């Protein structure tokens, strides 16, 4: 049987750079991200937090050397690592939380859209109900919210600001359509 070859979430790898030229809003799809979801066993939430060295705040991401931990709900996190080999990443995290938590491989099930640019705040306000104003959110801010009726995990990664928007892979093209259509007015 032939090996499975991963396809680009948008079908066209050129689409991202084309949409970002001369725009008030720029896009990127960070390559080689590994994602695993971590669930704490009952009563083990604090132990998982300690073991992974992450924050217990439900609205702030923690940056570690090999991953960012994005809180999803009590006792659940999405760990995103810059690691091409997602199985290796999963195994490393599973080893860390062995006995106190579970991991679930998510690398192929999510797509990360990195959104930035001088008009990104205005752009986000077109579809995101959260207040992302300068005085309200800062680097590390993390939330789950529907944007364009699609469930998004949002992570502000710097003060520019730049937002990482994680959606289910199955929604990637529909979400990309909304991103580019909405960005057209911010050229």
């Amino acid at each position: 049987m032939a090996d499975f070859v991963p396809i680009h979430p948008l079908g066209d790898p050129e689409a991202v750079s084309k949409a970002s030229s001369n725009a008030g809003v720029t896009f990127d799809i960070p390559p080689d991200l590994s994602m695993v979801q971590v669930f704490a066993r009952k009563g083990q939430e604090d132990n998982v937090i300690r073991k992974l060295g992450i924050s217990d705040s439900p609205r702030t991401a923690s940056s570690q050397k090999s991953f960012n931990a994005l809180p999803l709900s009590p006792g659940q996190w999405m760990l995103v690592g810059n690691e091409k080999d997602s199985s290796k990443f999963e195994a490393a995290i599973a080893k860390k939380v062995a006995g106190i938590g579970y991991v679930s491989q998510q690398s192929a099930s999510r797509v990360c859209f990195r959104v930035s640019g001088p008009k990104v705040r205005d752009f986000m306000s077109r579809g995101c109900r959260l207040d992302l104003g300068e005085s309200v959110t800062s680097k590390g801010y993390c939330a789950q919210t529907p944007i364009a009726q699609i469930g998004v995990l949002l992570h502000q990664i710097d003060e520019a600001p730049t937002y990482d928007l994680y959606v289910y892979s199955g929604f990637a093209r529909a979400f990309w359509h909304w991103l580019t259509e909405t960005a057209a007015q911010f050229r």
Partner: protein
Amino acid sequence: MHRIDCPWCGIRDEAEFQYQGDATKVRPAPDASQDAFFDYVYKRDNPKGWHTEWWHHVGGCRQWVKVVRNTLTHEIHATGAPAEKLSLPRKKKRGSK
């Protein structure tokens, strides 16, 4: 539009939540009568005023949130985690503001 203060996510729009009904109903013991289960499953009051209810934060953290809401004015008095006991606001005396 309600603005519901999720204990984990902070204040969010009603559009992110799903209403899930009366939060005061307690499941009867397994050996309770059929009537007790009928009441538990089907019978609901339709109060005018303060009501403790479930809202599911389906567009956010996917947790269940307990909300004390006024069905007449839509004012939200308190929100909390499912295990929290939320008290209703004190009744105002007639004539006082």
